[in-house]
């Protein structure tokens, strides 16, 4: 019983991280129609930045994470700005461009922070005991922050003008332009928002894992799969998919030890074959 609940809580904790990564993916996809292959690496940069603020500048963990989100959003803006000329011209090139940026970010991270990586202590590390079940306090923190972030994103997209503009651009770019929406600026904001979410995911994951330049690929792949599992293009789907993927990952690790990754992706592949549109159904963007 104890094992089940502990695995469940741990799985939901990681699920929150994957949900954040998946949400960032999905927002960029929904608003710009772009699958950002550098998203995992952006999360990694966020993780390194918050680790540096937390460990070297000795800022409180929350402050470090927020500063890292802001800094990474700026990085996101820079990437979008560089790739913007390609967007109007050739979309596939922009896609390859993000792939290239992923490689560059990983190399830059290695140059700045070294190859070995850093261990980040959790800001709260005394384990909690609830009904005789030991739960890692930090897991609850991650879940809480993830929930708050999801609600904030929902409010932003559905209750603010900027969010409405983003959704309008996603629906019909030309119509949005004709009603006076600045598409370029809206896209930049969307990219920055996606990058900020990625940085938050990275910062939260840092004490759970180990921050190295290769953290990006593993977080990116799992976030991407989470988004697909929940229904690609569907923001609610990204959240559901993230949680589902995290729980799947947690239980696979518990039962299959060294083969957990193989099992997780096998189950994912079967799930996608059975229901290709994902749990909540996909909303693909037409970039005709």
């Amino acid at each position, binding site marked *: 019983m104890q094992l089940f609940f502990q695995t469940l809580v741990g799985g939901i904790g990681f699920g929150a991280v994957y949900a954040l990564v998946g949400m960032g993916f999905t927002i960029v996809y929904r608003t710009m129609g772009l699958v950002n292959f550098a998203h995992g690496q952006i999360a990694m940069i966020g993780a390194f930045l918050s680790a540096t603020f937390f460990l070297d500048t000795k800022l409180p963990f929350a402050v470090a994470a927020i500063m890292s989100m802001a800094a990474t959003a700026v990085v996101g803006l820079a990437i979008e700005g560089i790739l913007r000329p390609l967007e109007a011209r050739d979309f596939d090139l922009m896609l390859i461009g993000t792939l290239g940026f992923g490689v560059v970010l990983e190399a830059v991270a290695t140059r700045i922070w070294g190859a070995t*990586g850093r261990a980040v202590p959790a800001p709260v590390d005394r384990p909690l005991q609830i009904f005789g079940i030991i739960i890692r306090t930090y897991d609850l923190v991650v879940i809480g922050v993830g929930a708050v972030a999801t609600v904030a994103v929902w409010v932003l997209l559905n209750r603010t003008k900027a969010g409405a503009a983003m959704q309008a651009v996603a629906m019909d770019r030309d119509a949005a332009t004709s009603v006076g929406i600045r598409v370029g600026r809206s896209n930049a904001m969307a990219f920055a928002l996606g990058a900020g979410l990625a940085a938050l995911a990275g910062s939260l994951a840092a004490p759970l894992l180990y921050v190295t330049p290769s953290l990006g*690929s593993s977080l990116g792949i799992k976030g991407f799969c989470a988004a697909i599992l929940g229904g690609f293009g569907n923001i609610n789907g990204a959240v559901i998919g993230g949680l589902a993927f995290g729980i799947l990952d947690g239980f696979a690790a518990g039962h299959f030890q060294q083969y957990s990754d193989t099992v997780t992706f096998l189950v994912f592949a079967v799930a996608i074959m059975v229901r290709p549109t994902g749990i909540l159904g996909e909303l693909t963007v037409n970039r005709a």
Partner: protein
Amino acid sequence: MRVTTMSRRWLLAVSACTVLVVVAGCSSSKKTSGTTSTPLAAVGSTSAASGGASTASASTASASTAGSSAAPADTSAIKIAVIDAQSGQSSSLGKWEYDGVKLAVDQANAAGGINGRKVELTVFDDQADPTVSTNLARKAVSGGFIAILGPAESADAIAMSPILQQAKIPYITSGQSPAMPKLGDPYLFLNSPTSTTYDTTLANYAVKTANFTHIAMITNNGAYGKGEHDAFTAALKALNVTPVTDQIVTPDQTDFSAALTSIRQKNPDALFIGAEEVESGLIVKQARGLGIKATIIGAAPTSTPIFVQTAGTANAEGAVSSTPYLTNDTNAQTKAFAAAYDAAYGTEPELHGAKAYDGAEIMLQALKTTNGAGGQALDDAIRAVKYQGLVGNFAFDATGVGVHETQIGIIKNGVLTAAS
């Protein structure tokens, strides 16, 4: 929002490819994203050559060509390759090894080299990947190197064995897996005791001195971890003790909550870790976070500063380590070594730097005996060396093992001290 068949098919194709790539990648030993790090051949080369231009560039894939001809002339440099992980999670091992070796070589070159010839080191990054190290072994053979120092990873050393044996290039490695002496490769030498030695000493301490009764094990399934697992289990068996649980993780794993939860349930009083430095540190950090209070016991990795750093000083307190190199203050020789190391690199040395230094010193002694020649003669000379080193008294046996004992140390306030 129109959903066209084209975009749906494209998305499915992308996701299918992603899954295939991931499953394929996850089953092999993953070392960063494959697209970025193409095997860096020469990270840097140090040449203490007095006259000619110093080659500080690190671009070509082949060996450094600092004016030395293929056939050793009277004043040409003696080429030794250092093959180690200079990137990735095990890069600390590679750095320690290189620093220790370079210190020995620089000292030798400053004293006149090998009968007037300078020793030239070239570093190769094998990323702790046996595939890469195999390629680098071939490069070393074709590049005219007569000896190799490294690698620190046992899996890589084993992978390189057939190539180096055929080319008659002796190599002194810092790995400790008992699988290495079992190879029967006459050109392979170890500058460290094997896991069997480490773990027998550790098991004896744990059971007889510290009186632990519930010992849990967590090891990784890489070459080093597997060696540790088998050696420690065998050592416990010889003392009629069975571990309460035996968890296996992978070398690249960073989240251990599943294994640690199982361990916690068995309520152990000691937890044996068989994994490299960083992974051991992460395991300890997460174990303490889950409320596991057992004493941590392990071999060489638990004696290093990077283990303490990764785990957190508070979490590493009281960890027991079996190691042949306890502190830098053990005797006059270690003090002198530590002073020189500190002067050269600005940090204090530890076990890995010490054993790399010993290995290099032995290689240099053998080279003096053969007057710079390699091949079978060098191999015999190495085996004949009797050397009082920093990590023990070296006397190589037929399988290549030189040191046969270790001691017990305990981490107190982040520093390894001798167990009283």
